[in-house]
């Protein structure tokens, strides 16, 4: 069966090539996303969250530990604030940047535009209810009487350091 054996060898070679070319996982020390970072001095996340209107629609550079990553599409990464209980989300359109889950716990530097996501009263109730449920806390939706804004950064450049 020389022809059959030859076909098997070709098929084997194709499968090996495909496996090798698709199974590569990057273990680079520093992960770069988007453009090269400028040397703009970082703004403290706590300063941004204390007065977000001052930075709204402006380009800011932030740095901090990555404390959360979208596990499905890698389309967002949460950056811890220098103040307790605060974080700021880097949010990209699906596929623009894909943040890996193993970035969690590593330091990130990101430059991008700060923008606000305005939630209606009902959306705010659902959002806060979900947070309370996750924290195992009681929550009364009636305490929410107006909507809120969530601030995020749309990054153009991100470095995740080792």
């Amino acid at each position: 069966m020389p022809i059959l054996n030859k076909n098997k060898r070709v098929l084997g070679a194709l499968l090996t090539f495909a496996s090798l070319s698709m199974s590569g996982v990057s273990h680079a020390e520093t992960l770069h996303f988007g453009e090269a970072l400028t040397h703009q001095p970082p703004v403290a996340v706590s300063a941004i969250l204390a007065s977000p209107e001052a930075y709204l629609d402006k380009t800011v550079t932030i740095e901090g530990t990555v404390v959360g990553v979208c596990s499905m599409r890698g389309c967002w990464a949460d950056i811890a604030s220098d103040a307790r209980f605060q974080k700021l989300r880097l949010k990209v359109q699906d596929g623009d940047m894909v943040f890996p889950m193993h970035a969690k716990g590593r330091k990130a530097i990101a430059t991008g535009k700060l923008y606000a996501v305005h939630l209606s009263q009902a959306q705010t109730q659902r959002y806060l209810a979900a947070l309370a449920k996750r924290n195992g806390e009681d929550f009364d939706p009636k305490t929410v009487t107006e909507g809120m804004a969530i601030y995020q950064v749309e990054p153009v450049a991100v470095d995740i350091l080792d």
Partner: protein
Amino acid sequence: MNWFRLNRTLHRDIGYFCISFTLVFAVSGLALNHVRDINPNYIVERAEAEVSLTLQASDAEINAYLLNAFNLDTSVKASYWESPSRYKLFLEQGHTITLNLNMQRAVYEAITPRPIIPALNRLHLNEVRQKWVVFSDVYAVLLIYLAVSALFMVKGKYSALSWRRGWLVLLGTAIPLAYMWL
């Protein structure tokens, strides 16, 4: 020129060319269809443990307690208080321990990148950008050709244009139409 033979030849050769493209989109399509049930990019293993910790414990004490609770011998990369009752510990390889003081429970999550599937998904979702979209468009056009040319592959009673097999074409048309209109 024998159009029937030409169509069969083109269908065969384009079919060969499209085999790997089809596998890429089909396998990743299955993964993405079930994205709510199975994380397509990572295998996430979870373990839970009851804890007995209070807010009075220092971060270092909490870290040592949590590592011991899950019998882990690894270094701590970072930690983060998400809320007064929720604490996260980041370990090597992106593994995490999340402590909920209100529930007195900790969850350890170990993540392992899945092989191959994420790469296929990136192609399916056009996340690689660059020139992939050109090949993706060419493949889509070739698929249209394969679908239409299949109608003229066989002559006679088993032709797609005969009632004996044409009902399969009608069924395949009716299913998406039903979902579009119902």
